[in-house]
Each structure stands twice: as C-alpha cells, then as structure tokens.
C-alpha cells in the first residue's frame, strides 16, 4: 500500500515536473546473439535536460544558480556544473572485448579498465587541469572507483581519436580534451550500486530491473559507461550504459544456446518504469532459424522491437534454436570478419630493461583504409621512435605510417602520446614494431605485489573509410587488449642495508684517501731478526 502511494506520488511528481523542467528519460536494451553462442546485452538509459547548456567556465568562480532536477541525476549534474564540463565519457570495463568474435560493440569504449575523457572549454577562473583533477576525484567518489590515481602520469590529450560526440557550444570558444586510462581498475558491484542510484527508477522497474549484479559480473565481458554530451537545439544528455556479453551455453544444462531474459539475468521485467517516455527492447536478428517468443511489437529484417510500456508483463523474451540439439562452437572465425580491421598488440622480449612492441593490423576490406593509431603509454614503457618498422605483407613500407604528433614521456610525471595515421592497402597485413625501453623505478613507486607487473593501457585505432558519397566516415574506435609489462624490481627489504653498505664503502675509500693525503710519510727501521 505504502509503496503504491510512493509510486503514484513519484509518477505524478515526475510527470508534473518533467513537463515543467523539460526532462526526458528513455531506456533501451539491445540484445544481440553472436555466432559463438554468446549474447550481447546493452542497456542504455538516456536522460535529456531540454534546452540546458553546459556551464561556461567564466562563471566558475561565481555562485552557480541552484539546480533542480527530477529525472536528471543530481549527483552527476552537480559535478558537471562545478567543473564546467561540456562532454564527459567514463567507462569501467572488465574483460577483453573480442572484435573478431563479437564485432563492433554497441558502445565504443570497451578498453579494459577505466577510461575517462572530457572536453572542457577554456576560460578564466580555473585552468582545465585543475578542473580535470576535480572531476576525477569527484567521479572517483561518485562511482567508488580509483579514478584519483588517474593523475598527470596518465593524462593525455589525444584529440585526433577522441573527437566530441556531441556539439561544443560557442564557435569561438577554445576547447581542450583530457583523457586518462587506468587499465588495472576493475568494475564490480560497488561501481554498479552508485550507477543504479542515478537512474530514476533505480533497478526496481522497467528495463533496469534486469540489472542483476550476480549475473552482470559473471558475464564473459562487462562494462558500464557514463556519457554526457551537449546536443545543439536539444540540451544536455546523460546516457548511462551497461554492456555485457553473456554466455547462455555456460548457463544451460544441456549445452544449448537457447536463452531467455530469465536465463541470462535471472530476472524478468515485472513492471514498467513510469517516468520512461520510451522503454524498448531491441532484438537483433540472426541468420539462423530461431523461434522468438513473445511476438515483438514491430520487427524488420534487422531487428525486432518490444515496447516494454505496452507489452504484457511479466516480460521474458526468449530465443530458441529448436532444430539444434546441442550447440557446436564455430571452429573458424566469421568470414568476412565482422570488423573492418583486426588488431593484435604484443610486448615482446624477455629482458626487464628493453623490449619490442609489435602490432599486427589486418585490413579485411578490398579497398584502402586509413586508420588513426593512438598510444597513450605511461612512462613505464618508453618508445624509441627511430626504430619504428612498418611492413606490409612482410615487405618494408615505412611510408604507410605518418606520425601526427608525438609527446615523449617524462619519467615520474608525464605519459607518451603518439598519434599517427596508418594507410592500409586492401586485403593484407601490416606489421609494426617499435623498440621500447623499460625504465627502473624508485622503490617507493612500485605498487604492492610489484612482481605482478604493470598494466599498460590499450592502443586505440579508429578506421576511416571512404563512404559512398566520398566523404570520410569515422567508424567506431577499436581498442587493443591491455598489456602487462614486467619491470625490474629492487629488493624492497633493503633500503637500510643499501644505505649502510654503500655509505660504508664510500667512507672506507674517503677515509683511506684522506689518511694517505694528510699523514706524514716516515722511514722506520725494521729490527733484524735475531739468529735462530
């Protein structure tokens, strides 16, 4: 009774205020079965603050106008206002996205670990770096993630690859990009709980009720994202996303790939979220013969759509391969491959003082592709740019890589930024190698369990293809898996011993030298040995 009251109140107030403040909320779940038996689930919760504009950095020292939101997440809205953020993308992922098996993800940002990037307008009051620092610590607090350690040793400005996804207001205002990665950061329930708190219906109703942490964090790959952008003539839009690649074969007892919302999430949709203007489930069609139940509201060749607000509840969508008694894993990868290019990146060499970064890029298209290639490497791995070797189908072709910008790393303070553009002729393989130096760290700079090594951020590729209208079309970003570098460690129990032993040696030599230099030389008579 009580909850019903609360709900009706919420519904009413939300309804009233959303019209007044022009806030729109919509939710969507995309389900995409893959050939390897897995299912991609992509949740997107979008809140639009109609006609709002990002705060101008000029006003940052002035008391801000008070913010009242009904659907828009207040905790996030305050952070955005406080640091005058125009566009923000935070993703926290776990696992390795396999482009060759799963194709492009629904959300670009699938690099392992945490990734945060923001576009900010320059202006007096507070510098971009100060605001970036504040943003990091606030988001760290908001999402219980260690984003605070994404400091200047991890921050770059790779504006070639990370273009704004929305619009930047003010044609003459200069904007700056800040980008940081933390590959060793993990995503788990402590990050999901604050994430759910930002949703108007939490995880109580609507599509969000499927967000069951026990199943989400059991997925083969999972990641959450917070995307804020400004769209001209629309307003400020916050999109909260969760992606997971679930494996129904693993859950099933008879080795079949049949799945349903209940088998994947261990939940079904019981009721709708009353404030959601749209609440849709999109099921991407497969080429296989499958039975889908219940019947979708609308469907076409590419996908079927369920409108959660109108469809009968409880809703449990299921997909069955009825003529398949047992799922056989495909032994070969898709042909043609699901992405335009495939990238593999490895760190070669056994020594702890040097190595070689090797990147293999395959172009699957029968036309030439250009791709931007970005490395935002911390100073834990230092490139020897002069040693870059580019081979196309094993023949040296240095002309295929052009370096757009390179900022060398500074030990203990700044990472490398290498932005380049690769030209990939049709159908072939590019081998790119760079010699690297592994630095030696102070003993206080090593993390606990130092022998494990350091996670290095993914490289990011962005293919550019020439579309039919001969314009360059930007494809989704492609993240390589992260690397682990094994840096030499000193003996952590030795500080006192080293100080003592080195100082003893120095004192010994110093003392002997000054003894020789200051004392007088004399002749002494050796007493003759008495005869035996």
């Amino acid at each position, binding site marked *: 009774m009580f909850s019903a009251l609360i709900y009706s109140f919420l519904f009413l107030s939300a309804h009233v205020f959303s019209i007044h403040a022009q806030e729109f909320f919509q939710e969507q779940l995309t389900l995409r079965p893959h050939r390897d038996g897995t299912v991609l689930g992509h949740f997107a919760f979008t809140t639009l603050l109609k006609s709002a504009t990002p705060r101008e950095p000029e006003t940052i020292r002035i008391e801000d106008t008070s913010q009242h939101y009904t659907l828009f997440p207040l905790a996030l809205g305050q952070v955005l206002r406080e640091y005058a953020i125009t566009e923000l993308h935070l993703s926290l992922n776990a696992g390795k996205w396999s482009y060759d098996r799963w194709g492009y993800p629904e959300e670009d940002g699938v690099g392992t670990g945490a990734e945060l990037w923001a576009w900010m307008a320059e202006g007096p009051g507070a510098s971009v770096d100060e605001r970036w620092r504040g943003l990091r610590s606030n988001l760290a607090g908001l999402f219980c993630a260690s984003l605070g350690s994404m400091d200047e040793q991890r921050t770059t400005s790779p504006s070639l690859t990370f273009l704004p996804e929305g619009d930047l207001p003010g044609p003459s205002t200069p904007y700056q990009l800040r980008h940081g990665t933390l590959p060793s950061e993990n995503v788990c329930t402590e990050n999901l709980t604050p994430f759910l708190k930002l949703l108007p219906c939490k995880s109580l109703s609507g599509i969000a009720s499927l967000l069951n942490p026990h199943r989400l964090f059991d997925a083969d790959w999972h990641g959450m994202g917070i995307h804020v952008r400004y769209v001209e003539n629309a307003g400020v839009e916050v999109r909260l996303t969760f992606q997971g690649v679930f494996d129904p074969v693993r859950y099933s007892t008879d080795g079949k790939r049949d799945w349903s919302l209940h088998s994947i999430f261990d939940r079904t949709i019981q009721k709708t979220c009353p404030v959601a203007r749209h609440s849709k489930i999109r099921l991407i069609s497969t080429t296989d013969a499958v039975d889908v139940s219940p019947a979708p509201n609308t469907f076409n060749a590419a996908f079927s759509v369920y409108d959660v607000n109108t469809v009968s509840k409880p809703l449990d969508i299921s997909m069955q391969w009825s003529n398949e008694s047992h799922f056989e894993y495909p032994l070969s990868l898709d042909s043609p491959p699901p992405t335009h290019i495939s990238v593999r990146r490895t760190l070669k060499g*056994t*020594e*702890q*003082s*040097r190595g070689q970064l090797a990147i293999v890029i395959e172009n699957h298209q029968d036309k030439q592709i250009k791709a931007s290639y970005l490395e935002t490497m911390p*100073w834990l791995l*230092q490139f*020897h*740019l*002069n*040693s870059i070797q580019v081979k196309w189908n094993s023949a040296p072709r240095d002309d295929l890589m052009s*370096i757009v910008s*390179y*900022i*060398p*790393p*500074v*030990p*203990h303070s700044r990472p490398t930024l290498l932005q380049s553009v690769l030209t990939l002729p049709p159908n072939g393989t590019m081998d790119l190698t760079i*010699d690297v*130096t592994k*630095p*030696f*760290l*102070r*003993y*206080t700079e090593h993390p606990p369990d130092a022998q494990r090594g350091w996670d290095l951020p993914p490289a990011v590729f962005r293919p550019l293809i020439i579309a039919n209208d001969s314009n360059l079309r930007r494809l989704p970003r492609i993240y390589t898996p992260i690397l682990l570098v094994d840096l*030499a*460690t*000193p*003996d952590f129990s*030795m*500080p006192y011993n*080293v*100080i003592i*032993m*080195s100082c003893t*040696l*120095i004192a*010994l*030599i*110093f003392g*002997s*030298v*000054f*003894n*020789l*230099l*200051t*004392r*007088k*030389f*004399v*002749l*002494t*008579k*050796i007493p*003759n040995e008495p005869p035996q």
Partner: protein
Amino acid sequence: MDFHYTFSALVAARALLAFAPLPDALKYSQQLSSPLTSYARLKEGVYLFSHGIDPYSGGLFRHSPLLLSAFTTLLPLKDPISKLLWTACDAAAAWSLVKIWRLRQRVGKSSRDGLIAALYLLNPYLFLPSLALSTSSLENTALLVAVAFACERRSSASILLLAILTHLSFSSIIYILPIFLLLTSSPVSNLASPRPFALDFKGLRKAVLPLVGEYFAYTTVLTAASTLVCGGSRAWVEKTWGSFFLLPDLTPNPGLWWYFFTEMFDHFRPFFLMVFSLHLLIYVLPITIKFQHDLLYATFLMAGVSATFKPYPTLSDPGLFLSLWSLFPETYSYLRHPIVTALIHLHGSLLLPLFNHLWLATGTGNANFFYASTLVFGIANGAGLIDAIWAGLATAIPVKDGDWDVGQE
C-alpha cells in the same frame, strides 16, 4: 718494431673488431653505456630533433645538444660512419696517451710507445664501450687530447677541449683544477722529488686567471650554441647537466649511485643527492695540493675518483684510469697490493655482466646480486685509487736496503 707499424696494426685490429657483428648483449649492456651515453638514445634524440620534436621535452634523451647538432648536420648517424668515428676517436685517444708519455719522459720516441698504445686500444674496459658506441669513449678522447695539449702547453686547445668535455659530461669538472695547473707547470715526473709548486700565489693567480677566463668564455659560447641549437629553449640544461645532480634515470650501471637512490627514502633523496654530488668535488683540492709537484699524476688520480664516484659511470671510466696507469711506471715498485686490486677487479668485472644478466634477463637473481657486484667493483676501483695515491707518495721515499720500511706517522 717501429711504433707507427704497431700503432697502425692496433688501430686496424680495432677497426676490424668494430665492424665485426656485435651481439645485442654488448649493444645494450648497462655496463658499457649509461642512459647519458647510450647510442640508442642518441639515435632517438637525433631522430626526434630532425622531425621537429624537441628531444629534451622527454626523459629518454640526455646527451648534449652539441652531439645532437653534430650528428644532425656534420655527420649522419649511420652505423658504419659511427663505427669509423668511434674507432678514430679511440685511435686519437691512444695517440694522445703516447704523446703524453713522450712529453713526460722528454723523449722523441721510446720503446714503450707501442705498449702504451696497446694498453689503451686493447683494454677491454675501453674497447667494449667503444664497440657499443657509447659516447663515454668520446668523452675519454676529449680528456686525453686535452691533457696531451696541456702537456705541450698549448693552453687554448686544451681549454677548449676541456670546456667541451665538461659540457658533455658535467662531472668532469673535477679535472679542471689539475689540468689548469698542469698548463702552468710541466708534465715531467717529479714524484721522486716533491717540491712546492713553482709559482707563488701571486704568480699562480696571474697565470691561471686568464686560463679560467678563457675556459668561461668557451663554456659560455658552447652553452649559447647549445641553447641556439635547441631553438632558444633552456630545457636541455636540466635534462643533461641536471641529471648529474638529480639522477632522474635509475638504470643500473657499475657505479654506486643508482641502487642507493633506488632504495632511498623520498624525503632524504635531495639531501643524499647533495652529499653525493659534493663528495665527488671534495677530492679535487686535497689531491691537487698534495700532488702539486706532479699535476699529471693528480689528473690521473682524478680519473680514479671519477671512475669510482661519478653518477653515471660506464666501464670506460675505470678503463681510462687503468690505462692512464701505464704512464707512471716509476710507481709500480711502490704499489702495496697490486695483485689484490687486480683480482678484485677481475672478480668485479666478471660478476657485473653475469649478475646483470641473472637479474634482468633470466630472472633467476634479484637486484641485490647486481648491487653486490657493483660494490665489489667499487672496492676494486677504490683499492686502485688508494694504492695509486700511496705509490705516488711513496715514490718520494726510496728504500735502498731491506732494513727500512716506509710508513705513516
């Protein structure tokens, strides 16, 4: 055999070695090239510079802007050319060593010339870094040529080379005082007959002040040229000279600094950096005063101090000290423990590459192994330095018969 034939044969042998295929173990050895002298880093710096990126904006490149400009304009940094250049520099250094010997003995030529050249060119501590194209070989050449000019009393040439040397390697400033005084005296051996410096304070001031002025003039010109090369930016000062005081790169080397500052508590780091930097300078004045009768010997002892205590040593530094020893045969009979020193050196130089490999390549040893071997190597260099000081001083007190022994009060 005629010296010229010996010398040519030696240089030819070295050139042959230089063009032999070089194993990676030597090319990237941390004993042979430090972060400040590594050829791979020099190549990277030249590459960045020629592509319009300031190499001093990063932390990898710490060579002098002079080398940067030389290798981007005058000499292309191609391996065969570099190999020839490094061999030529070694030959020049060996030639200078022979010249210093001749000037010290006041002879036109001697039977020992070939031996002295061989002791430089065939010293593994010297030719291995040179094969690895470590710029420490160039620094050694600059020093030896500067000393040779100083022995000839050609002050301008000597001071110019000294200015270049200190520009390339800042810790070489410890050579300035003995070489300046050497310019005002003679290289002839006076170890057996010590006497006060020929000039009194006034005369000394009159003789040395112009030299100091000249040195500062050259240094200013070189500094200005370097800043000009870097397009007016002064970032190179911190990245090159600054690294001698701040030790930003903790790559292992055979010296005593790297592990000490790897293991140093952060709040004591500045203090100990200051202590270690000053400690290097402490030896200059006492040794120069004590050996004012033979400043070439004082210069030689400075090489020993530098080999033991400089922040980024390579094997070239102890190698120079050992090869310079060939100039002072009069002290050999006064050495107290040459066998022990030689054995510790052998021990240290075998352990260094072995333990470095065990730690960094095979992973079967840890950092303490290599640290222990650098301590042994430090003891070896220290023992050599102490024995050289003893022998240099004891030469003045010859013992005729077995009934007397030299000691200290």
